[in-house]
């Protein structure tokens, strides 16, 4: 260790203190509580009572099943759709269908769904699918003969299907865009040409040649989706069944129960969720590796025909429907937010009102103020940190590159609830709970990894020879950093920032648990209003929640064009 590499050590220390220690400490507190030690409620002795209590709680098995079905189902289906969608983008055929004219716009179409918080999509989807939802209204009474909303559980169904659908709709654009970015590292078109010239169909070529090269590049995002789907609380609350709910939501309810003695089994449930997630990730990886290995062996037969037709038929239908549902979910929020009167089964509101929006402008709610402050500061900090970390890696070499990446992504790979509760306890002890600062920092834990995830590939792909040329022309390394790197990377930097805004706005648990009710947010407001009756107000909050990140994205996508035009 030489003295001149101090920025590297400073960075490593900051990451350890800022992320690793608190996450592990939070997990530690939770694990202690799961084994009976929670001084706050006067428990000081090690015991496994909490576990006995947990296993006696009603509905635990159902909760486990619900979490597994929605978690694996959503991850599997959204990954399939994303891979199929990517294949579609690269498919050139002489017969152009009407949908293929949308190809150049496919990324633009996905951005609103990508930008919208999970809760906004979930609320919108509920407004679509509910028995009194927009879809039922559109087809009633002329097709369904319903004059009143039917008595069907189309949302919050017992099997968690609507929850799974909501997760698929929200995760598809993420996995799709991540795949399209990763595919740029593979020579896709020529490999497809080559494979097809050997007699393999486009689908066979995609499955046998492209997917096995693509998957290792998107492994981490897929894990992130799996972990999120297994541990989401806000989406489960809005779309999942109520009694019993998924394990994550059940855990949250036990934590919030008025009976403080439930805190111990709740902590045990947190630990159980953590174990469930670790086992799921492991199982997923084992299955993926087995499938990859088998397909490599199957390649040896040289079989060109492959029976994909049923499969591609299903995906061809499912893909546009999934994207449409996502867009309609946002549209229905917008509709409700300007509705005055909209009775069943009218297809559209009969009278309109902008009152809620006017009120919002004249009297900006605390939730919007707090959300904006937290989002702007945490995304700005995350971007600065990401740039600092990458620049330090560039200048001082990356001996710890891999391991620090795992540090950074850690908060996305452990269930939020499992360490946030422990952190809350820790903060309470230090008297730091419920301040804006701690909420921002809790957001940063999630904003920073997503910012890194979106920035790291573009940063590494930047041709280092530009910098070498500039240095050889006598520029200092600071000047290179500002004038070469940051200006060449303007677009990905702004995008990473916008993603940071979107992630911060969508956070539910960190604000709720660390904010201790004193820090408001659009998501908390939208989720709690969603259980109420006023769809117009929910529409306003849901849409607002989606609009803030969408504005950030638009800014990130348009500014580089304006700069380019000026040149």
């Amino acid at each position, binding site marked *: 260790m030489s003295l001149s590499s101090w920025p590297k050590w400073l960075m490593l220390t900051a990451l350890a203190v800022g992320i690793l220690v608190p996450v592990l400490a939070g997990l530690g507190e939770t694990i202690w509580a799961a084994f009976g030690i929670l001084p706050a409620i006067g428990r000081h002795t090690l015991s496994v009572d909490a576990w006995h209590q947990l296993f006696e709680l009603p509905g635990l098995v159902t909760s486990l099943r619900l979490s597994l079905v929605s978690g694996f189902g959503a991850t599997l289906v959204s990954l399939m759709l994303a891979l199929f969608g990517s294949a579609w983008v690269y498919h050139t055929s002489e017969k152009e269908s009407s949908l293929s004219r949308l190809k150049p716009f496919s990324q633009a179409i996905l951005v609103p769904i990508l930008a919208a918080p999970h809760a906004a999509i979930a609320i919108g989807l509920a407004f679509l699918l509910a028995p009194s939802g927009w879809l039922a209204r559109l087809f009633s009474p002329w097709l369904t003969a319903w004059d009143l909303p039917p008595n069907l559980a189309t949302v919050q169904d017992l099997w968690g299907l609507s929850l799974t659908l909501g997760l698929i709709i929200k995760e598809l654009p993420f996995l799709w865009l991540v795949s399209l970015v990763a595919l740029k590292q593979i020579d896709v078109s020529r490999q497809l040409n080559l494979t097809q*010239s050997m007699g393999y169909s486009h689908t066979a070529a995609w499955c046998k040649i492209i997917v096995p090269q693509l998957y290792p590049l998107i492994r981490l995002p897929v894990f992130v989706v799996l972990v999120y789907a297994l541990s989401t609380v806000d989406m489960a609350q809005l779309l999942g069944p109520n009694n019993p709910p998924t394990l994550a939501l059940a855990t949250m309810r036990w934590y919030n129960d008025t009976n403080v003695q439930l805190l111990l089994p709740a902590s045990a449930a947190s630990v159980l969720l953590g174990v469930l997630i670790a086992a799921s990730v492991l199982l997923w990886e084992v299955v993926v590796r087995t499938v990859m290995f088998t397909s*490599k062996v199957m390649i040896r037969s040289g*079989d*060109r025909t492959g029976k994909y037709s049923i499969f591609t038929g299903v995906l061809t239908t499912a893909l546009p429907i999934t994207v449409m549902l996502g867009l309609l979910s946002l549209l229905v929020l917008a509709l409700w937010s300007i509705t005055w009167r909209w009775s069943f089964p009218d297809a559209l509101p009969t009278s309109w009102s902008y009152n809620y929006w006017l009120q919002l402008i004249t009297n900006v709610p605390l939730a919007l103020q707090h959300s904006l402050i937290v989002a702007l500061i945490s995304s700005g900090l995350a971007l600065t940190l990401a740039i600092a970390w990458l620049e330090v890696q560039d200048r001082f070499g990356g001996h710890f590159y891999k391991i620090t990446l795992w540090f950074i992504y850690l908060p996305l790979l452990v269930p939020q609830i499992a360490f946030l509760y422990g952190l809350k306890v820790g903060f309470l002890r230090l008297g730091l709970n419920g301040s804006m600062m701690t909420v921002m920092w809790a957001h940063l834990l999630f904003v920073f990894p997503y910012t890194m995830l979106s920035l790291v590939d573009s940063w590494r792909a930047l041709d280092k020879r530009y910098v070498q040329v500039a240095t050889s022309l006598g520029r200092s390394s600071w000047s290179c950093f500002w004038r070469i790197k940051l200006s060449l990377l303007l677009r990905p930097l702004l995008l990473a920032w916008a993603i940071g805004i979107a992630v911060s706005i969508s956070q539910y648990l960190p604000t709720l648990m660390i904010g201790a009710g004193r820090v408001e947010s659009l998501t908390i407001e939208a989720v709690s209003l969603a259980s109420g009756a006023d769809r117009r107000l929910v529409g306003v909050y849901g849409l607002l929640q989606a609009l803030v990140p969408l504005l950030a994205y638009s800014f990130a996508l348009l500014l580089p064009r304006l700069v380019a035009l000026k040149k």
Partner: protein
Amino acid sequence: MSLELRSLSVTTSTHVSLFTAVDIVIASGEVACVMGPSGVGKSTLLNAIGGHLSTHFSVTGEVLLNGEKVTHKPVVERQIGILFQDPLLFPHLTVGDNLAFGLSSNVIGSKNRRAQIEQALEQAQLQNFYHRNPATLSGGQQSRVALMRALLAQPQVLLLDEPFSKLDLELRHTMREFLFAQAKQRNIPMLLATHEPAEAQAANGPLVILMPA
């Protein structure tokens, strides 16, 4: 077997021809060459024959394979193999599995298939390379594997888009001889895009000079 091009050209979406129309007949075992200034569209011509043109381009004239028109046949059914400048060995498969992927499905039985692949490796002087990772092979070795993979698919025609241009001079010479021998042995027509007069001369077959239209 033969490949025939009848006043073949490629036009852009604005109906501008890229190069003057090509007429040529290539018989089995012959290696014809396409020459022309860089950027004139040698690769585009090969893509038109193989059916790999992007939708921005369209083909005029005809491509005939053994007298049958295949100009608008889907790539998958054409049986026209192609070799690019880069070997494009699939990085997730071993050398042997790359060849197995190419080997025609007419060859059945895993033992039989394995024997054919070993034989191909032997011809390419790559015995005991079955389990190697393609990335560990030298440029010349990779090119030989790519060529064998294309041939194992039993194409009716093989198109070669400057396949050896990235190799050094000496290696290029050896590869060329290897290629010509394979054309004779497999008895199929080949079309080689090149910018080297020496290569065209050595091919000793029909010659197309591509000129901008």
